[in-house]
């Protein structure tokens, strides 16, 4: 059959995904050792201040603080500052109960996450400032694995590797997979000096740089992305460790997920506009000429591909059932398909793309030190379309809102 519009889209889609996958896989093979290891701890350990802004997090904050108290780091070099951003629940009380274990508590009027972070930073004294989400936990050795990167005086920030905390339902399992993929991606991007988000759950910053460039931007939808892009635009380096793990709570239903992603994606659009001078600017190296444009392109491809695939899927299913209803014959005997007769050039192309994607998934698991369960692969493969559809739909909503110039509702 001649190529349909959908075929052409899918050919371009698989061509681009193939290319990007090759870039990541090559980066992995070029820097195999560095993917897994971290630079050694500095001889003189720096003082570290950890800031935890919290707004109505009474349920999760104690786990967060507990994981910080368990950190394998000299107590006299560790400062933990919990900032209560005018919570209306019992966050203040829960924070207070940690005072005797050395946690400093700052109570302020509600002003948003960025303002809470800034307030905490202002009261802190560490050379390294760690920003931590109040719904996340961190593993014992996270600091020991990340602090070594700051030995390079040009490094301004270090990202941890974020995993989904105890994924239960299928939606959370998808996010789990997505986060693993992001760990691989972020590390690959580090070799291109291209990290454009230091995720909120556990991000380390050099104090002097924060002071020089100013703190977090108030009211920004994704203040972590904003400050990362700002750091990049000033020419500093950002590193990441693939084995310093932070664990974060993930949305458990579609509504919550869409809400979270609308904030993220809208934040990406807003901050991309704010730092549009980074795009296609060779002054910023790989970040400007490859990573940021490629990311936008990939989102676009995902968007078009998922929507057209869903259309095709629904259309095919409709006609399939329609034909069954008309003919009154539910099942035709399964004929043994002759693979030579029924394999087309497109099938081959799909097969190749899927193989490369599986390699990327395999690498994601490998660098995140997760075991692959073979039996869940088919489930993932089938439902990936559904998850992709949710994300594509979310992008659609974001782009639409942006085009309409809708005001941003800042939710604490």
């Amino acid at each position, binding site marked *: 059959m001649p190529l349909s519009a959908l075929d052409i889209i899918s050919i371009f889609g698989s061509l681009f995904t193939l290319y990007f996958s090759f870039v990541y896989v090559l980066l992995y093979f070029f820097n195999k050792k560095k993917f897994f290891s971290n630079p050694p701890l500095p001889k003189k350990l720096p003082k570290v201040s950890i800031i935890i802004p919290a707004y109505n997090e009474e349920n999760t904050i104690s786990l967060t603080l507990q994981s910080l108290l368990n950190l394998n780091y000299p107590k006299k070099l560790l400062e933990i500052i919990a900032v209560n951003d005018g919570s209306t629940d019992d966050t203040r009380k829960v924070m207070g109960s940690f005072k005797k274990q050395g946690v400093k508590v700052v109570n302020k009027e509600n002003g948003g996450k960025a303002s809470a972070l800034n307030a905490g930073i202002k009261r802190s004294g560490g050379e390294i400032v760690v920003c931590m989400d109040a719904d996340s936990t961190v593993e014992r050795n996270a600091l020991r694995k990340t602090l070594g990167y700051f030995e390079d005086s040009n490094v301004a920030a270090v990202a941890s590797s974020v995993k989904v905390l105890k994924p239960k339902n299928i939606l959370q399992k998808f996010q789990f997979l997505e986060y693993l993929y992001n760990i691989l991606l972020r590390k690959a991007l580090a070799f291109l000096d291209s990290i454009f988000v230091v995720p909120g759950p556990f991000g380390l910053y050099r104090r002097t740089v924060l002071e020089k460039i100013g703190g977090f931007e108030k009211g920004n939808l994704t203040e972590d992305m904003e400050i990362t892009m700002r750091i990049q635009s000033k020419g500093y380096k950002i590193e990441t460790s693939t084995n310093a793990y932070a664990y974060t709570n993930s949305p458990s239903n579609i509504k919550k997920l869409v809400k979270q992603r609308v904030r993220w994606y809208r934040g990406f659009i807003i901050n991309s506009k704010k730092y549009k001078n980074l795009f296609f600017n060779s002054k910023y190296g790989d970040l400007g*000429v490859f990573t940021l444009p490629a990311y936008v392109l990939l989102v676009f491809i995902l968007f078009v591909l998922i929507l057209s695939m869903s259309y095709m899927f629904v259309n095919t299913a409709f006609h399939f059932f329609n034909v069954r209803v008309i003919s009154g014959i539910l099942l035709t005997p399964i004929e043994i398909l002759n693979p030579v*007769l029924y*394999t*087309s*050039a*497109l099938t081959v192309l799909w*097969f*190749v793309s899927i193989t490369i994607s599986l390699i990327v998934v395999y690498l994601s698991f490998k660098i995140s030190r997760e075991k692959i369960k073979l039996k869940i692969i088919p489930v993932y493969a089938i439902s990936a379309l559904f998850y992709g559809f949710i994300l594509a739909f979310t992008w659609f909503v974001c782009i639409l809102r942006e085009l309409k110039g809708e005001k941003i509702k800042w939710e604490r």
Partner: protein
Amino acid sequence: MGKINFRLYFIAAVLTAVVFSTGIFIGWLLDSNRVTNVQSQIDDLAVNFQNLDLENSIYQIFSNETFVCSIYTTKAESLSKQTDQLAEELNSFKEMNQFQLTKLDFFKKRYTLMNLGFWLQLVNLKKNCDYNSTTILYFYTTKPCDDCAAQGIVLDKLKRESPEKIMIFAIDSDLDLGVVNLLKTRYNITKVPTLVINEKNKIEGFVSQNKIEEFL
């Protein structure tokens, strides 16, 4: 300030190009293979039909019969199987091929000509000999048509259940071929699917299995 990894992007591009063109090449090989298959089946079938015609002519000279029943009756079923198989190959060609698509039209014309030639022989067979298989002309389209797809499934099932009792001749009504146009005019075919059962009963639209079975 920033450095650009041209080497990386270049290698990735080369790898993508290699993988992509290998895929296309394999696809092309498969497509060519299908073309060769269809071609050889058409040739095979053409030889068989020519042989049949010749056998018939020779019998006529020796026996003064105008139509030799025994030749056709014994061979009808195997020929029908062979044409069906060709139809399937043509279908996979149509569904799967991205290359050499221009050949499809030609192949379909050759197939239709042979198939209708076969139909004509069966019509003669029914007229002159003790042969009572039901012949069905089935006009369809390759354009999207759920009724046609459903009709195809029903006819397939019928053929599978009683291969000797029913002979189906599928005709792509969009095919630009004199004999197809002639039949369309003769039977006044205006819509698809349409069945012509035993050369006289025309039924427009989808026909259920039970209804077809009434004619058997």
